[in-house]
């Protein structure tokens, strides 16, 4: 019990320390970068007296340590500050933008894992064959062609030329303002609203960005699975299983794959974290109002409260997913137990 408590305390301390470090770093970058945040608030042409007043209102006339302490005090009260651009509390903006990214990332990860893992296993089993080479080429293309190019090609082919997919955006204008926001996840909200037309429309709008992101992630997952699986298939326990006369399917999925699954947990967790961080380029090309776009727009306009708030959220996601991966390690790997 005592050991468990110590382990939990160590983990929590590590998480808090990481988040604190992230806060300090992001805050400092925001304050020392060579862009005046007041310009973002009032525009370049604002008169000097307005600039001075707004600088005071934003607390930017205070020494940096004082500003930082004030920010920490705000954070401790769950206040990430206001966004200059949206005129909303940052927390409220995050609640609005994050579900769009979550919806995209989760669907993309599921698709990527469902295709990538079997492909990786297949490539490992058929190592050196035509199948292996074909999978390698497909994966290489997925991971090396820039996402914006894949996105634009996809729009050009499926939206513009073939007319079988909708254009950029989360939903068609006929549904604009028709669906009440409950979870922020449009596919779920449309179902809650009982509007099947809107549901299919939301799903259709998701198809292209999800497939692009899934392809990109699938390539990585498949390559890693292949590498882990090749190692596993060399194991003596696999040779023994085969010598005992087990079918290939049973050897692969019953004996070799469980050992690979442990390593894959980390790969999938990190892939998911990367997707949740906001696929900025994909969100930009597909006009997807997600957290990546929110962060980019804020950064470009020197709107620092959203930048810090979003960075902390991303940090929290990484730390959280790493924690989950650690826990799953303990569940899946008997040696850790």
């Amino acid at each position, binding site marked *: 019990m005592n050991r468990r408590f110590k382990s939990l305390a160590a983990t929590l301390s590590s998480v808090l320390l990481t988040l604190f470090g992230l806060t300090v770093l992001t805050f400092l970058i925001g304050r020392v970068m060579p862009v005046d945040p007041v*310009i973002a608030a009032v525009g370049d042409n604002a008169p000097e007296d307005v600039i001075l007043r707004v600088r005071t209102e934003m607390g930017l006339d205070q020494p940096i340590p004082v500003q930082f302490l004030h920010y920490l005090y705000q954070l401790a009260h769950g206040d990430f500050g206001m966004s200059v651009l949206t*005129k909303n509390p940052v927390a409220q903006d995050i609640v609005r933008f994050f579900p769009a990214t979550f919806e995209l990332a989760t669907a993309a990860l599921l698709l990527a894992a469902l295709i990538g893992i079997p492909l990786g296993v297949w490539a490992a089993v058929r190592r050196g064959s035509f199948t292996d080479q074909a999978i390698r080429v497909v994966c290489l293309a997925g991971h090396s062609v820039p996402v914006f190019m894949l996105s634009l090609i996809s729009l050009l082919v499926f939206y513009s030329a073939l007319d079988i997919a909708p*254009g950029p*955006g989360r939903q068609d204008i006929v549904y604009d*303002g028709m669906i009440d926001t409950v979870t922020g996840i449009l596919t779920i909200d449309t179902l809650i609203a009982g509007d099947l037309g809107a549901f299919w429309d939301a799903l259709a709008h998701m198809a292209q960005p999800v497939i692009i992101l899934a392809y990109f992630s699938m390539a990585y997952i498949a390559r890693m699975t292949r590498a882990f699986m090749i190692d596993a298939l060399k194991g003596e326990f696999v040779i023994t299983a085969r010598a005992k006369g087990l079918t290939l399917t049973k050897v692969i999925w019953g004996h070799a794959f469980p050992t690979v699954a442990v390593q894959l947990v980390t790969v999938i967790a990190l892939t998911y974290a990367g997707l949740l961080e906001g696929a900025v380029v994909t969100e930009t090309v597909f006009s997807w109002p997600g957290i990546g776009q929110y962060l980019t727009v804020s950064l470009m306009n020197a709107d620092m409260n959203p930048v810090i708030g979003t960075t902390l959220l991303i940090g929290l996601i990484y730390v959280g997913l790493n924690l989950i991966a650690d826990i799953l390690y303990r569940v899946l790997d008997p040696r850790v137990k």
Partner: protein
Amino acid sequence: MVSRRNFLIGGAALPFLSYIELADTAFAATPKDILVVAQQLDNMTSLDPHEGFEAVGGEVMSNMYQKLVRANSDNPDHVLPVVAASWEADADNKVFTFKLADAKFSSGASVTGEDVAFSLQRAIKMNKSPAFIINQFGFTAENVESRIVAKDAKTVTLTTEAPTAISFLLFCLSANIGAIVEKKVVLANETNGDLGNAWLQKNSAGSGSFKLQAWKASESITLVLNENGPYKGNLKRVIIRHVVDPSSQMLMLQKGDVDIARDLTSEQLKALQSDDGIVLVRKQIASLVLISLNQNNANLAKPQVWQAVKWALDYEGMQKNIVPLTHAVHQSMEPAGFPGTVTDTPFKQDLEKAKALMAEAGLKDGFDITLDHYSAQPYPDLAQAIQANLGAIGIRVKLQSAENRQVLTKMRARGHEMALSAWGTDYFDPNSNAEVFCINKDNSDDAKKKPFAWRSSFKSDEFTAKAEAARDEKDPAKRLALYETLQRDFMANSPFAVMFQTTRTAACRKNVNGFQLGVLSEGNSYLETNKA
């Protein structure tokens, strides 16, 4: 007998079959009474007309609110009446009386003198970024209630601090800061004495063509028809969608998912010129591209060097090869389309003349200098051309690229040597630019006013006097004549090389007509827009 495998395959295929069915209906063109616009909406901060001071927001607000008068794009020397039916000045040019026309807010209430007086008082009291446009007439939070007065339901008087040219006052009132808001509605939404500011940032209470239905930051703006407003066309809604990527805007326009694309690149516009289904609406806007020479650099402080730089630049070549569809050669500090703007372009590339001027300045062997410029196109390409042009007369330019706010921050701190940047005019009067380029009375580092000239440490008592004389001239025709003289003097004798004026293009589908672009963003109007 259906096998388990076939059942699963069939089940999996069902959604896709439904999707194909859906594709025929959902991806059709936009409805005739809804105008869909693809536009970059990422730098909007407020839709309160007495606060917002950015281009995109300015455009949206000008479609929701009316002002006493508005700029006239056909004849920029005269304004057009809107809420004001007529106006007159007293003999001293200090008291200006406005008689109001009939207009109604989106609530159905009539626009009264009290609403007009409240709106202008509100702008002064809130003192947000654009307030200087009208507080320069001597209005302050303390005196505004006695100086801007509703005499009756149809009459408002404005009393300025000093005698004022009526044309100057009218031009300033045509800016969004002069927007009329509905007093009752705004005050009903006041919190903590903010005069309804927080509410009006995301709502509307105007008498313009449309009212605000929703603003989802970084996503969309939806305007719905103001049934009581001046719009008489067939549109019921205008949806402005935030589409960042110009390639996506182009595809959506060609497919008919949007009716107007606002941020296409030069290359895309070139391709669309031959597209019969697209009409390009073009307008020179009040944004100048110029080089500033900081006078705290000894070499750049020499008037011969100002001249040498201006004669070394290949304006025509840069325009034709780098910015053919987005910029026009322009050398005056006032943008074309403004009252009294000089459109002559006296400077052409003449390297021999430029070299002689360098020699006259005692800089025959040239000098090294850094040119800061925006990192977004076309600035890097322009900067490289400038580097080559100036290199030909011995000025060895080192280029320093940065995001535009970074360059502006550096210029505000007078940290640049040479800078290639843009300047957007604030309001529809020649004083707007003349003031920032010419009137710099205190050149010290801690000056209270820091106009554009101050940023490059340029102080000229002669220009200050001339700009003030033009600003204060009561006779409108004489006033414009003074500005013309000032522009020519400034063009020849200042450390600012104005090179280009930006041309904005809106690509519209053929069935959309009547969309207008203005020289200022508040002139971008859906008032006469229709969809066939």
